[in-house]
């Protein structure tokens, strides 16, 4: 593995880990379910992609990289669906969002 690839891998891994940590921290810190959805989104998109790209640099041009690409595509395609499903389930039963002005909500939820 060349030095450049090693440095790039290290940078991507570090950045990804930082974003994963920020996302998890947000999941703990934010006040309600709907805002926490966004924090989980950080982990699922940028944190995950950056870490996997870093690992691709470690793997080089091999089948390992192909598998990493598959994992990344799979999660990027399925995570919005899962997020929407959770959000939709919560909204359907009328879980009230924190801090949203009342004129935004449907009649039944006010």
């Amino acid at each position: 593995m060349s030095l450049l690839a090693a440095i790039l891998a290290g940078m991507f891994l570090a950045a990804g880990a930082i974003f994963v940590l920020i996302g998890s921290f947000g999941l703990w810190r934010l006040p309600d379910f709907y805002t926490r959805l966004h924090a989980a989104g950080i982990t699922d998109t940028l944190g995950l992609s950056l870490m996997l790209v870093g690992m691709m640099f470690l793997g080089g041009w091999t089948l390992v990289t192909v598998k990493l690409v598959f994992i990344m595509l799979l999660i990027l395609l399925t995570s919005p669906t899962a997020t929407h499903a959770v959000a939709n389930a919560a909204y359907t039963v009328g879980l009230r969002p924190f801090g949203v002005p009342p004129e935004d909500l449907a009649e039944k939820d006010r």
Partner: protein
Amino acid sequence: MMLAAATVGLLVAMLIVLARAIAGPSLYDRVLAVNSFGTKIVLLLAAMGFLSGRPDFLDIALLYALINFIGTLAVLKFFRYRHLGVASPSDGKAETTR
């Protein structure tokens, strides 16, 4: 080196997310936290493959990504329709938030 640091970061993140899964407060927070936990396990498995020098273990990470998605959808289908069979719209509102 950086890989080890990133792995430690992942482990810390997993602890925080587990705390959210246990603390709740609503059911949906827990589902979200467990789903996010699953994503981190996928990353951890991939990182462990590289740490032990055997990246073939990625197959399991791939399987996890699939299982995690299917599991979340099954849980939410259960939430919305109260059973796992055919959906009937009248059941959608039966669940309270906690």
